[in-house]
């Protein structure tokens, strides 16, 4: 490779300029790949620059102007990533939407952001936009990438992406200087992207970031971890999530590395193995799912393999993470670990698609300590980072070699963090949001007078100066006896069991902690099959006494763990139930980033909560569910409630 892999000069200070710079410095290097019809297709930086130019010119010819907002909806596709750059080149603002949102949720964002132009992936998204068109007639232009199924759609708003591109090529031929001039007019202080918050609390808010801010954050990350143009990432997280925007767009634009788009969301794990990325970013949930899949396959493996796996995992737990951090380890353990690497860890990393991983990050939610330890012990440099949509996820990162499982690391260069008297974490970062779109009230509320962003998370600095986050500030509560109750902490412990997919704990202002459990259909289904237990579906499986026994073991194990943690021992789970339906974002029970909306769940299932805190042993409920197409149905079930064994506090035990 003749072209340099070193970081580019720091002259470019807007995203379109960065793109043009890469096209000049490394025109022949691969910028993006996408697997299409079973074959990886690639585009070089100079091709990407041409594509973006064509698209930008096409949009301009269609009347898209500076200051307008462009909605982008779909899975991770190169053309959608180019749409970001094209909108930015014209001084417009790209607004990515969650592709699995139902039409009505989209309506809110479209109205709020006054969207007139939208670029979408396929028929599914077109249908949703057409559905809300009568309520939102301002939407004038819908461009679609994949024409399948759209042959007989004749709405005047629709135009194929390919046509838009052709219009752009003509426009460029007629006015060759147009694109260059447009890019020249983009200022670093212009808004570069608007990302909607997931709406854990109330309606989503549009977070506006400037080119200067987001590039500063991305540059900080790139320098901190030493990313170069040789790195490879797989982009498979929702484009509307700040994490993906930072990782697949901003950082790629700064460092010039290659972004790979999977064939479809279902093939992502397979594509991960084919690409073998060097840098990986995923919320804890994905790491959890990966581990669950592995554990299921191990359970199905022959006895020798299973034994080998467990024996070597024991070794890995003992010394894997220490070896990676360069700490002293006994010679016998070193030898055993080397053998394990050959037999187990290496192949396992390969199965996970992580053979080439240099740096892997997780963030967005707390990661279970056991989960975290697992990945680090098999030699994957998994680190935690901390940040929000509002701070361009540029607040804290664990340094390589200094990762501690219960902290999120230290403030990054240029970031100031302080703890408010009530325990809330406050942040001043170069990647700070400009404002919430059309919400000066919310902007004023979340940025303090001296320029700190109020994160809403409760945390503290430990003795080493590492930041620890316990929970959302408003979720941390107290039990009736005054002891600390951090629901997420308990839930994460539950969720580490492969059989438990989701858990919701209650306890604030109450005398004891009780929990809702969602079983993991894949893991429990497999478990039931092996016991020749027939079941008809989730509702049936969730109500089985055998399954309750299984979950009870998990809950009691968590209680035993909690008993060992002095200040959280009061949070032991006294009673639990297995929910009759899976918590679902379509029913507003989870956010689109799949975080539990605790208060909503508590209200929706108030009957069950009351039953938990009474002496009832079962409870009859009926719940409305929303299907993907917006239709509604009802699920009725008789939910059993069980008492879990709990362990006396350590102090009592000692006495």
């Amino acid at each position: 490779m003749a072209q340099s892999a070193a970081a580019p000069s720091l002259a470019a200070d807007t995203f379109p300029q960065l793109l043009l710079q890469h096209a000049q410095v490394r025109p022949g290097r691969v910028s993006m790949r996408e697997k299409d019809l079973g074959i990886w297709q690639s585009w070089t930086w100079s091709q990407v620059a041409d594509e973006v130019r064509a698209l930008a010119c096409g949009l301009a010819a269609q009347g898209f102007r500076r200051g307008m907002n462009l909605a982008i909806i779909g899975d991770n596709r190169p053309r959608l990533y180019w749409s970001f750059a094209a909108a930015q080149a014209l001084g417009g603002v790209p607004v990515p939407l969650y592709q699995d949102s139902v039409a009505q949720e989209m309506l809110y964002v479209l109205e709020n952001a006054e969207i007139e132009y939208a670029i979408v992936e396929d028929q599914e998204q077109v249908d949703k936009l057409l559905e809300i068109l009568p309520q939102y007639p301002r939407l004038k232009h819908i461009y679609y990438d994949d024409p399948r199924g759209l042959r007989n759609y004749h709405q005047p708003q629709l135009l194929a992406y390919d046509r838009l591109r052709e219009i752009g090529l003509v426009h460029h031929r007629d006015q060759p200087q147009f694109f260059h001039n447009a890019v020249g007019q983009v200022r670093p202080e212009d808004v570069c992207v608007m990302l909607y918050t997931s709406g854990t609390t109330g309606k989503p808010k549009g977070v506006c970031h400037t080119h200067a801010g987001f590039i500063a954050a991305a540059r900080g990350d790139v320098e901190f971890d030493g990313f170069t143009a040789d790195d490879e990432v797989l982009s498979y997280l929702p484009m509307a999530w700040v994490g993906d925007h930072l990782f697949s767009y901003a950082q790629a634009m700064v460092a010039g590395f290659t972004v790979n788009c999977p064939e479809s969301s279902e093939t992502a794990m397979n594509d991960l193995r084919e690409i073998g990325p060097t840098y990986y970013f995923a919320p804890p949930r994905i790491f959890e799912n990966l581990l669950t899949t592995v554990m299921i396959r191990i359970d199905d493996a022959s006895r020798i393999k299973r034994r080998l796996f467990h024996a070597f995992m024991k070794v890995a737990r003992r010394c894997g993470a220490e070896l990676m951090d360069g700490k002293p380890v006994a010679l016998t353990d070193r030898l055993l670990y080397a053998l394990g690497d050959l037999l187990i860890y290496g192949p396992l990393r390969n199965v996970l698609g992580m053979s080439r991983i240099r740096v892997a990050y997780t963030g967005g939610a707390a990661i279970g300590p056991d989960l975290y330890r697992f990945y680090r012990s098999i030699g994957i440099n998994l680190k935690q980072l901390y940040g929000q949509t509002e701070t361009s996820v540029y607040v804290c990162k664990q340094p390589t070699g200094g990762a501690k499982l219960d902290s999120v690391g230290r403030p990054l260069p240029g970031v100031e963090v302080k703890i408010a008297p009530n325990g809330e974490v406050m942040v001043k970062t170069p990647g700070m949001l400009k404002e919430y779109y059309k919400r000066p009230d919310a902007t004023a509320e979340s940025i303090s007078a001296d320029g700190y962003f109020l994160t809403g998370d409760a945390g503290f600095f430990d003795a080493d100066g590492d930041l620890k986050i316990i929970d959302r500030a408003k979720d941390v509560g107290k039990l009736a006896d005054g002891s600390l109750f951090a629901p997420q902490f308990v839930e994460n412990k539950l969720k580490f069991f492969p059989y438990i997919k989701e858990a919701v704990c209650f306890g604030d202002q109450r005398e004891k902690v009780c929990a809702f459990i969602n079983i993991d259909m894949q893991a429990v289904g497999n478990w039931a099959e092996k016991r020749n237990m027939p079941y008809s579906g989730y509702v049936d499986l969730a109500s089985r006494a055998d399954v309750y026994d299984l979950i009870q073991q998990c809950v009691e194990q968590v209680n035993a763990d909690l008993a060992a943690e002095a200040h959280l021992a009061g949070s032991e789970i006294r009673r639990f139930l297995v929910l009759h339906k899976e918590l679902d974002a379509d029913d507003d029970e989870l956010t689109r980033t799949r975080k539990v909306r605790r208060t909503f769940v508590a209200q929706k299932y108030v009957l069950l909560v009351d039953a938990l805190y009474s002496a009832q042993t079962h409870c009859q409920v009926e719940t409305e569910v929303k299907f993907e197409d917006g239709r509604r149905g009802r699920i009725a079930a008789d939910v059993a409630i069980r008492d879990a064994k709990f362990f006396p506090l350590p102090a009592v035990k000692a006495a």
Partner: protein
Amino acid sequence: MSDGRNIGEVTLNLQGISLAFGGVKALSEVSFDVREHEIRAIIGPNGAGKSSMLNVINGVYRPQDGTIRFRGHEWKKMVPYQAARLGIARTFQNIALFKGMTVLDNIMTGRNLKMRCGMFEQAIYWGRNRKEELEHRAHVEQIIDFLQIEHIRKTPVGRLPYGLQKRVELARALAAEPVMLLLDEPMAGMNVEEKQDMCRFILDVNEEFGTTIVLIEHDMGVVMDICDRIVVLDYGRKIGDGTPDEIRNSKSVIDAYLGVAH
């Protein structure tokens, strides 16, 4: 439903079809036609002769009486491989795939009629055959993309859930580039979501490739939604034929399905 699609002339015409197995009359004097590009449903209670009808169309059963006219060819007796050559592909009520083979290989078997190389040439992946195989693979990949089964490309069919197997069977039928597709209960045993996906695929196939589709289905919601015309059979006799609206209001159909007080 049919906006924009050109429903053409009659392409398949069945006249006075009677089929008996010994003393059991499966079909008696059934006549109906199928137009080009339309989606035609055959409905009826259990044992009405629906599957027999499909089997007559593609030559698995030979009717004792009646004629079949398909795209200008007329015959009384026909064998399945001839039907396949004329461009009729089908899926089965009980999935008939090679369970131990991967999805990809299963769909490739659907291309067999289109392959010019013989068995021995196919065995060595070289020269003319190599080129041919690559072309077929490219075509199969289009179908895989079309039916969104990329994630199971390399999975043995036996390990797949039922709904997906049905989709793979449809893929194999499509691989033969049929002009007419016979689907025997494509949505049986599926949940609501899978049914919706399948409906979408059937409509897409019809729209994108212009394939004429004849399907048997029990879910009336599906039938009424996606079909252009419906034939109703009961005890081997035709008791109704028309658009979904006509069928919905036809007295004899309602009687056969819901029963009447005598």
